[in-house]
């Protein structure tokens, strides 16, 4: 039977089999723990230590973005609240507000929690969604970034 199938066809079938196997393994692994960021709900569910560097992702809560954080005068900082609709985290970051960081839109922050449950961010990344629309007379677009 091997001679009829031919060694090269067997090699082809074996290669395809390996491909399927690799694909399945990769697919299942990508769905589980290879997490780029955690949502606020997940952060509170898992025990994240103070000072442990993690990434947090969610929406910037409307009305929370300000370059004058409460109780911290004179520092070159800005703050906002990251939320996933369920839990919230107050984030403090250095420097000027990034251009594309908007209220109601997505953001990913990297940093660690301080003792008072404020998240001190070392990196703030603005997220934008997959919808592209032409501007309509200066109005804010209806679509928002999902976390």
């Amino acid at each position, binding site marked *: 039977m091997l001679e009829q199938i031919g060694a*090269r*066809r067997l*090699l*082809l079938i074996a*290669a*395809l089999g*390996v*491909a399927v196997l*690799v*694909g399945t393994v*990769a*697919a299942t692994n*990508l*769905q589980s723990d*290879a*997490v*780029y*960021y*955690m*949502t606020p709900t997940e952060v509170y569910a898992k025990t994240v230590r103070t000072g442990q560097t993690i990434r947090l*992702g969610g929406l910037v809560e409307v009305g929370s973005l300000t370059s004058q954080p409460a109780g911290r005068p004179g520092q070159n900082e800005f703050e906002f609240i990251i939320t996933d609709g369920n839990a919230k985290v107050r984030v403090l970051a250095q420097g000027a507000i*990034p*251009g*594309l*960081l*908007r209220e109601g*839109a997505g953001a*990913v922050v990297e940093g660690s929690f301080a003792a008072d449950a404020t998240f001190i961010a070392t*990196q*703030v*990344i*603005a*997220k*934008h*969604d*997959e*919808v*592209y*629309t*032409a*501007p*309509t007379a200066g109005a*804010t*677009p209806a*679509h928002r*970034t999902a*976390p």
Partner: protein
Amino acid sequence: MTETTISRGNTLPRIRPWLGIAAAASFVVASVMALFWAPTDAVQGNVYRILYVHVPLAWLAYLAFVIVFLASVGWLWTKNPVFDAIAVSSAEIGVLFTGLFLVAGSIWAKPTWGVWWTWEPRLVTTAIMFVMYVGYLLLRGLSTDFSRRATRAAVFGIVAVIDVPIVHLSVLWANSLHQLPTVLRAGGAPALDSSMLLTLMVSLGAYTLIYAYFMTARVSLERARQVRLWTI
């Protein structure tokens, strides 16, 4: 194999100049549309226009690597050296396009996300895809025996294509920074204004013609090399 068709002159050398002209002309049209005709984006402003370079290059890289897969199957199935020529040509162009769209993406990322790079799922899987196909090209340097080299590369080309759907689906499978697909998605029409979608399709057409032109040139070169080095 049969005597080479190169010396007799087949259709490819005759259409190639026209293909090149079509590719150049459509590239100019697409670039003008992308830079001037398409509207600005309500959220990102003008910087989003890199989309018209980044997305077609990505789609064509996917196509190129799928063609590597098909040509690899073709070689293993028929042992016709034309398939090996197609595989290596498409892999080279795919690697080039992948490198280009990674750079374009990085240029897009800095003013929008705020970083040049981050190890998030879409970027990681794309980097893996790039490295794998560079590996495919390096693998071909391991042997000077034509059949052995082609078979080795073909097996690798068949396995490596698995990463192509993984790259595309990575944003759907995991929390990612890269946004969800705008066009190639399951639910709903493409999330683009119609004029933007038209510009994207024209750009896709232009880059496809560029890919086709590169392919005809490279496959023809590879066939000539095969004849010269291995008299096949």
